């Protein structure tokens, strides 16, 4: 069984720790605030400041919306799963779905300033998190989003 792995920004760290929690969600947009509330609490546990927490939560929220709208085509009976792990250097959320394979890396960065309704989710996700990894296989798709803690950011930026 082959899998396609696309990584942007940095190589995956492979934390290997069990998830803090896993949510199985029906593909309904009106349920997305449940994911958001859970993520906000994890960000608090990870000592993310308000801005960092908002950025990570929004990125995961947009990724889940993409699964509902595109991978699952708004079919509410389809289920996707969100797993969240805390590591020593940040928080990772992985979104698992079994919808249409999605090549995250192939999505172009459309000009976000053009007046159109949609098409900004991937652009924003790329800028809100520190690492994006996408995998597609016959078993399904996994998108992993990782955001570093402020302390790790400071270490990365130090000369």
């Amino acid at each position, binding site marked *: 069984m082959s899998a396609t792995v696309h990584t942007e920004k940095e190589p995956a760290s492979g934390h290997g720790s069990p998830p803090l929690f896993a949510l199985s969600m029906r593909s309904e947009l009106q349920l997305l605030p449940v994911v958001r509330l859970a993520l906000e609490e994890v960000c608090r546990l990870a000592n993310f400041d308000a801005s960092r927490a908002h950025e990570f939560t929004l990125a995961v929220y947009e990724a889940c919306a993409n699964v509902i709208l595109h991978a699952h085509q708004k079919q509410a009976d389809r289920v996707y799963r969100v797993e969240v792990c805390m590591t020593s250097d940040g928080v990772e959320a992985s979104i698992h779905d079994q919808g249409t394979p999605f090549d995250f890396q192939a999505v172009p960065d459309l000009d976000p300033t053009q007046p*159109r309704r949609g098409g900004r989710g991937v*652009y*924003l996700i790329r800028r809100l998190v520190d690492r994006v990894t996408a995998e597609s296989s016959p078993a399904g798709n996994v998108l992993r989003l990782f955001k570093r803690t402020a302390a790790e950011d400071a270490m990365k930026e130090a000369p």
Partner: protein
Amino acid sequence: MIEITLVRVHPPRTAILRLAGEVNYVDVPGAEQSFERIYQNANPLHVVLDLSGLTFLVTPFIGAVLCWREMVLRGGGVLALAGCRSGTEAAFRHLLLDRLIPLAADVESALARLPTEQTPKKEDSAHG
């Protein structure tokens, strides 16, 4: 859920709208309808959106704001944003919206930056 209300009309024709709550995906169509209804009823030249009460937004809402900007531009006016919280402001900046729409710290700052309304042509022609 988001609530959009017309707070006041700043003379001569600047509508100040307050947005409060959060904009999830399912809230965007309602927000669009609210804005368009208020805009048509108030018929302003400029519009200032007071976002100080907005706690969360999603990307389709940003698309809606850009469409509102186009609507106001077509009428000869300017759309300005005021009072963004840090999280919402980050989304606007990451999506480069701050290059198109002025982000002011508060409503009064936004009003101060708006272009002054030109004298209507009818008054000009009265002199000639």
